[in-house]
């Protein structure tokens, strides 16, 4: 059973991450089924939105692990290199999803199939609507993440990994900031809280996922990175909770709406997932304080929960109270 002698086996954590990604996409598609009009439009927009979210969160997480790892240790450098390679692949996936997302959403806006769109249509959609401009920014950020990751593969000193982290976070913010929040009553408050919510959630979910995949079997590095991440995760949980409550309050406006509308139900589901995740995080901390490394399986459960939450978040982006 000792596989750590040669190369730590990354298959199981990677499979968990894949499972989580698939769950997100399915959840988003299911939720989208309740709001979109035609099936092709539904599939296109839901899949690309969920896919872009998963890829973007993964980029944030991979960059975060690069920041959390100790500097200089040779094994840490090996892991960093693995993270950079993963960033190239996932960054490329993010760019593809973001590009296709623009095409499908523009088609949905025009009410035409994607195959009938022209370049002028895309340009008009992307420049006229706030959502379009936000989507363009996401494409730019995804492309920048991909470029930085390729540069880092050549020479890690070319681009500091925290720059990649900031760019990835920015790319994650733009859909939420140009979504419902921009059209709701308390515009400035809504946009700020959504931005904080998305940033904190991305760091938390992405960081945990990347830690599992990259460091799942490397006990020594995990012992250094996990306490740092745990502190960050605690702060993220607080920010996610407060900003989530504020945003829901702005959108729902009343307790009745919370219990009576579909949007309210989604908020309740997200809140329940948050409580579960917070509980798991607390248990993890206790185990670490007792000197025992948390079991990988628990982290796997957390990831699945987070994936469900991501899907719920994508669903929320499609509905309105």
């Amino acid at each position, binding site marked *: 059973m000792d596989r750590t002698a040669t190369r730590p086996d990354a298959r199981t954590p990677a499979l968990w991450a894949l499972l989580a990604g698939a*769950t997100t996409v399915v*959840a988003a598609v299911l939720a989208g089924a309740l709001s979109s*009009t035609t099936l092709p439009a539904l599939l296109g927009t839901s899949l690309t939105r969920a896919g872009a979210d998963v890829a973007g969160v993964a980029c944030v997480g991979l960059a975060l692990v690069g920041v959390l790892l100790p500097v200089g240790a040779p094994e840490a450098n090996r892991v960093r290199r693995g993270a950079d390679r993963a960033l190239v692949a996932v960054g490329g996936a993010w760019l593809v999803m973001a590009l296709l997302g623009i095409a499908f959403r523009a088609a949905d806006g025009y009410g035409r199939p994607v195959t009938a769109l022209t370049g002028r249509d895309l340009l008009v959609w992307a420049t006229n609507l706030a959502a379009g401009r936000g989507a363009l920014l996401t494409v730019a950020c995804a492309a920048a993440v991909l470029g930085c990751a390729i540069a880092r593969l050549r020479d890690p000193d070319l681009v500091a990994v925290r720059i990649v982290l900031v760019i990835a976070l920015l790319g994650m913010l733009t859909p939420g900031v140009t979504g419902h929040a921009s*059209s709701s009553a308390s515009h400035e408050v809504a946009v700020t809280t959504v931005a904080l919510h998305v940033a904190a959630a991305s760091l938390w979910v992405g960081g945990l996922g990347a830690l599992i995949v990259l460091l799942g079997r490397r006990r020594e590095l995990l012992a250094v990175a996990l306490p740092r991440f745990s502190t960050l995760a605690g702060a993220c949980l607080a920010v996610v909770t407060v900003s989530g409550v504020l945003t829901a309050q702005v959108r729902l406006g009343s307790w009745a709406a919370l219990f009576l509308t579909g949007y309210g139900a989604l908020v*309740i589901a997200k809140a329940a997932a948050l409580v579960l995740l917070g509980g798991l995080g607390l248990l993890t901390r206790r185990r670490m304080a007792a000197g025992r490394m948390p079991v990988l399986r628990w982290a796997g459960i957390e990831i699945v929960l987070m994936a469900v939450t991501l899907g719920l978040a994508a669903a929320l982006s499609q509905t309105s109270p």
Partner: protein
Amino acid sequence: MTRLALRLLAATVAAGLALLLGAAPAFAHTRLESSDPADKSSVDTAPESVSLTFNEDISAEFASISVVGPDGTNYATGPVSTAGGQVSTAVAPLGPAGAYEIGYRVVSDDGHPVQGKLAFTLTTPGPAASAPTAAPAVAPAAAPTAQAGPPATTAVDPQASSRPSEGAPIWPWLVGAVILVAVGAVVALRLGRRS
């Protein structure tokens, strides 16, 4: 692998349940606040334009309005114009009296399309009514609608739902871009492996 498949199935079911439990029919993000003529109203003079007011600014690029009469013709003409949240279109002289249906489709600033229908009833035949229906004896003391003008041309051009696209489809370019990104990433990964 079966355990993994079972876990995947369980997670999917859980996610689906969580979503379906509270799901309600989708709500429009952009809401129609009012219209002129108002929904389910009766008008005795044919309106010359139809306007709809939404709760947020609408882009004219993606807005379309149709006004279909009891004879099946779409009387909306000309481009749709917007002023903030108000979307309007000119209407050709209306035809026979009866139920008219206003259909609209707009796209809100967050990218989601919103569509719906309104109805109003025209109580006296419009200026373009072809059949010379006698002025109804019960007609209220409304301004007599002039029956002047050429006979109705029922072949009013149906307003294009949105401006027809000019130019070549772009999807081949999109496919090309996707392939380019994929190839670029693979090449970067392979080259990176050697150093």
